[in-house]
């Protein structure tokens, strides 16, 4: 079993839809959770960063962490065609600060 599971999609939604992207994980020691966005033929860029449990909001993006279920989510409100990209989750545990464990990424297409 992989440490981090992420459905690769592809996910296709109409413009303006609410998008929900998810990852599950098995290592209860993970405390740092990140979402990266990667456009085609580019490097990933950090979108959201959360420490431990709870929610974090940044504009149209909300990151949620449920440590009891070992489940993290990224919500995109009012999705735009410019949100079309691959979204990768990543996480790490204290004491292992150099290595991130990555999901495979979910490919999202927002159609005008």
């Amino acid at each position: 079993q992989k440490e981090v599971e992420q459905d690769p999609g592809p996910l296709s939604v109409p413009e303006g839809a609410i998008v929900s992207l998810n990852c599950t994980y098995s290592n209860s020691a993970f405390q740092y959770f990140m979402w990266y966005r990667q456009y085609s033929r580019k490097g990933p860029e950090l979108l959201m960063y959360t420490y431990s449990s709870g929610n974090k909001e940044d504009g149209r993006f909300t990151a949620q962490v449920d440590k009891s279920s070992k489940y993290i989510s990224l919500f995109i409100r009012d999705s735009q065609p410019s949100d079309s990209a691959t979204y990768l989750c990543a996480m790490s545990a204290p004491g292992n600060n150099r290595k991130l464990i990555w999901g495979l990424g979910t490919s999202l297409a927002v159609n005008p």
Partner: protein
Amino acid sequence: DVKVTQSSRYLVKRTGEKVFLECVQDMDHENMFWYRQDPGLGLRLIYFSYDVKMKEKGDIPEGYSVSREKKERFSLILESASTNQTSMYLCASSPNRQVKKNTEAFFGQGTRLTVV
């Protein structure tokens, strides 16, 4: 603005060639990483370095070596390129967690390497 720069966007090399991929960061980060990214396999860590002249193997180090002579520069070396090393190579850097709370990795634009 945070910057990780990879020396080439696209490279084509022949089987058996020695290949150097260079990465430079301007954020004074302690940690640097080399990943490869393949469809269906995601990001896989090849090597990382947490200090000058220090290196640790990642998940797939076979066929690769690295060099970190200066803090800002991390090189990936393919000693004898093979066709199964055709991939997107991504360099990243991050600060040491003891120094800064935010330890997210910052990525370069990637090098698409084709070995023929």
